[in-house]
């Protein structure tokens, strides 16, 4: 102001130019808040409107280049924050603000754009449940659209492997953020969708800010998903992130990993089904063998066998009686002999022929030993018969006749080995077969079923 000389008379143009310079100096980089009214969008792409508050208003313009960058559509009544500069429009002497950035007040511009697009597509029915397609149960070719270098592809492939997806993956590498990302994603969806072998497509991306995830909120991407020939599963960002792509997709998974899980679920279940069937097979066979083992046990305790055992016991009892009788007989015999001896002794003692007594004593000893021999022979004979009887019983053993191909495992002391815990490694065991026994040494103990599986 000090540079303006007193009493100088300006022309209108001079004043406007001076004001323009001053505004340039002080108001070329300002932020302003206000409500939009008198909104007019021209064919050229320029947007004219008025920013106002309770008591005043200011003309505003957003030129084509800036308008194109807006992430949301301006609407009358919207409270916005804008950035720009003040300018005098010399032709009319009015000043206005030229805005290069406009954001809705309160929520971010992207959020606003998101809500607008979401409402629009929802109205069109793009999110309808009826549109959602079923995923193939056992996909053989899976298309994946994501960055080839991010954590997302790594997570997805790891998950597909872990879920034993028996399939082929076609990765269509794309940029997942920034300028051009949306166009690449659209091309990828189109390309994979055209291929006859692709049965399902995963569109994935790791976490990021709303700006990073923005390509997945673009209308072109949403429409490409809706138009895709094969079902699309999205796994974008984290659990809390919802993108427009998620709403349009046939299945929205929370993360890339979850998307891979959803797609590979059928393969996983198939393998689970298989594992269960194998476990059941071994279990039911074990039950069978246990059942038969029990039946053999029961049979071996059958009355018929008990009778044999009882007969054997009877025989033993009878043999004891015989033995006792024999002993008695021998005793009696000895008693008679002793009586005779006594008599002789008496006679001899009367005659006192010492030599004769000696002779008699020798004869008596001889008689005694003969008697003992006879007794022993009888007993041995009986024991032999007993053993023969026992072995005949063994031959009739239920185990031998019923097993038919089964083998019994016995410890050297005859204990039946039923569990591997009963024997130690390198311990000798006998494997009892139908016609004999194998002497074996335990080499190893393997717990579990037939195959040790």
């Amino acid at each position: 102001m000090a540079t303006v000389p007193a009493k100088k008379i300006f022309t209108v143009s001079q004043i406007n130019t001076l004001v323009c310079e001053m505004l340039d100096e002080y108001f070329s980089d300002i932020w302003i808040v206000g409500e939009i009214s008198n909104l007019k969008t021209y064919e050229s792409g320029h947007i004219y409107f008025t920013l106002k508050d309770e008591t005043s208003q200011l003309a505003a313009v957003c030129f084509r280049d800036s308008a194109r960058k807006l992430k949301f559509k301006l609407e009358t009544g919207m409270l916005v924050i804008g950035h720009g500069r003040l300018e005098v429009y010399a032709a009319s002497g009015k000043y206005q603000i030229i805005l290069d950035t406009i954001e809705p007040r309160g929520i971010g511009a992207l959020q606003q754009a998101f809500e607008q697009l979401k409402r629009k597509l929802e109205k069109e029915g793009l999110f309808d449940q009826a549109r959602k397609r079923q995923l193939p149960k056992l996909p053989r070719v899976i298309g994946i659209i994501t960055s080839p270098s991010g954590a997302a592809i790594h997570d997805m492939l790891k998950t597909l492997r872990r879920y034993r997806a028996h399939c082929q993956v076609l990765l269509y590498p794309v940029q997942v953020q920034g300028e051009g990302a949306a166009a690449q994603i659209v091309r990828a969806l189109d390309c994979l969708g055209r291929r006859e072998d692709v049965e399902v497509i995963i569109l994935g991306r790791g976490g990021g800010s709303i700006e990073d995830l923005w390509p997945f909120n673009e209308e072109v991407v949403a429409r490409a998903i809706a138009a895709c020939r094969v079902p699309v599963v999205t796994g974008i960002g984290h659990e809390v992130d919802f993108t427009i792509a998620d709403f349009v997709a046939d299945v929205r998974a929370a993360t890339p990993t979850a998307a891979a899980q959803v797609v590979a679920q059928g393969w996983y279940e198939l393998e689970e089904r298989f594992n269960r069937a194998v476990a059941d097979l071994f279990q039911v066979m074990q039950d069978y063998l246990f059942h038969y083992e029990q039946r053999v046990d029961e049979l071996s305790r059958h009355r018929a066998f008990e009778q044999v055992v009882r007969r054997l016991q009877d025989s033993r009892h009878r043999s004891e009686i015989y033995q006792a009788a024999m002993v008695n007989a021998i005793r009696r015999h000895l008693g008679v002999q002793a009586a005779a001896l006594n008599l002789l002794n008496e006679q001899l003692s009367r005659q006192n022929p010492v030599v004769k007594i000696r002779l008699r004593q020798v004869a008596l000893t001889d008689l005694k030993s003969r008697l003992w021999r006879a007794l022993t022979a009888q007993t041995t004979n009986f024991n032999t018969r007993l053993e023969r009887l026992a072995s005949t019983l063994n031959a009739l053993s239920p185990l031998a006749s019923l097993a038919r191909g089964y083998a019994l495992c016995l410890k050297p002391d005859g204990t039946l080995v039923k569990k591997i815990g009963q024997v130690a490694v390198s311990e000798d065991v006998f494997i009892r077969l139908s016609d004999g026994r194998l002497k074996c040494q335990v080499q190893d103990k393997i717990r579990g079923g037939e195959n040790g599986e």
Partner: protein
Amino acid sequence: MANRNNTEKIDFEQALAELEKIVKQLESGNLPLEKSLELFERGVKLARQCKEKLSEAELKVNKLIEEKEGEMGELPFAEEGD
């Protein structure tokens, strides 16, 4: 190729279905020991076949690349750091 994959898949599912049928048979009836052993052996054989098929299930990953305008080619995809 899709066709061959298809055949493999059917084989696996058929084998698995038969295996499950065998388990059901064994579970349901009091079969003679001979018969049960026979079924069991068949089951083990099927299980082995399935297992082989499953171990073949190596995930094949190819990367699509644009060779010419509009024409796509495939290359095996190797993950970074692998």
